[in-house]
């Protein structure tokens, strides 16, 4: 093979234009972590199961371990690093902190983005809708009670604004 083919991927991440030349097989999660140095997005199972790698791509959650970086070219991405503004936590982050929804913290970035996505579509989710919304986010350390509590709090706090 005559050298490795690389292609240019341009995205907007957390409002900022970013680009890098990568092999086409580069997964979006590795592009974010290795090329753009945004290590807040975690790799959990790497098999499209656990959702630790969840990010927003064009306002929809995706598992960034299951997308090649070139598929996101031209897209708008939000990672956990983009949730806070001027050093102030996003209400969803604040609720997770208040309700001990972080637990060990590994699945948290993905859960935060799934919650942001849910609440952007549905300001008053029912218990069933909340559970369905995070069905693709696995906690492997503790369980979901505090996570559910956090999401309920985030919904009611955001409702008040």
């Amino acid at each position: 093979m005559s050298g490795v083919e690389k292609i240019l991927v341009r995205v907007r991440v957390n409002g900022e234009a970013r680009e890098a030349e990568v092999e086409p097989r580069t997964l979006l999660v590795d592009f974010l972590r290795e090329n753009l140095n945004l290590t807040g997005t975690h790799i959990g199972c790497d098999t499209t199961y656990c959702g630790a790698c969840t990010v927003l791509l064009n306002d929809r959650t995706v598992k960034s371990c299951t997308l090649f970086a070139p598929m996101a070219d031209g897209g708008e991405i939000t990672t956990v690093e983009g949730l806070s503004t001027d050093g102030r936590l996003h209400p969803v982050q604040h609720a997770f902190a208040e309700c001990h929804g972080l637990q060990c913290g590994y699945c948290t970035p993905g859960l935060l983005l799934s919650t942001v996505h849910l609440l952007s579509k549905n300001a008053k989710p029912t218990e069933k809708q909340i559970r369905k919304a995070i069905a693709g986010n696995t906690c492997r350390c503790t369980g979901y009670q505090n996570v559910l509590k956090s999401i309920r709090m985030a919904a009611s706090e955001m409702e008040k604004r």
Partner: protein
Amino acid sequence: MYPHPFSYHRAKSLAETSKMLQQLGEEARVLAGGQSLIPLMKMRMARPAALVDINFIAGLNGIQSHNGELRLGALARHTDLEMSEAVAAIPILHDCAAGIADVQVRNQGTIGGSLAEGDPSGDWGATLLTLETSVTCAGPNGERSIKLEDFITDAYTTVLGHEELVREISVKKPPRNSGGAYVAFKRSAPVYASASAAVQLTVEGKDICKDIRVVLGCVGLTAIRAKRAEDELRGKKIDGKAIQRAAEAARETAEPQSDMRGSADYKRALVAALVKRAIGIAVRRARGERVEAGHEYVGR
């Protein structure tokens, strides 16, 4: 986990896709949502030398209701279908779309990709086989329309030629006194179902089954039409005994294999229970009731 290296080609039209596939040869594959292909490539169970990315082709994701027909663009994501009112008018389609894997996968996976992959555990095959469904395929020699029952021929096998791809799926709307349901049972949200049952039936008068289709998913090399189960109900009074006989017939029709999702015996028992449940919901819906149905898993 990294897949084997491949060359990446971004197509801007269907015609360009066919041309690229032609030039790149047999080792090239189409990349749509990638929710099955990418995991397979990462596990190196698939190692295409080239991918033709069709995600940037405009106008391939439409959802249109037209002349008693629903037309679904190949790139319509499961979420697009889940949120569509036109799709919800045929409840069995909403059952299917709203429960495939999880939110993230539904946001990315496409209906065209699901059918083209021909996975026997895929949800769309079983669901759409209960309706009059045809698949419009585009290739270098133009288009052809294929009935879904002739489209999927074996596990992971369709009649699509190498340079051909799915452009649209057309579904004929069922009559007003018709109802359907798709019920799938899975161990957790992100995984494939252990078994599934799709039923669409038409009720005449109070409780006579005028017509019915029963399709079983995950229990054979393709989704299986359970014709003996249908015969237990077609033209007959729908009552508990007839439904039980249909469920028994479905159990015998199933050809499951034992695997990590359960033993063959377990899947037979499961599929019979799902058929029974799907018939019950289909009948209630045919009578105009609003009933929830879809994928079931622990913790939902």
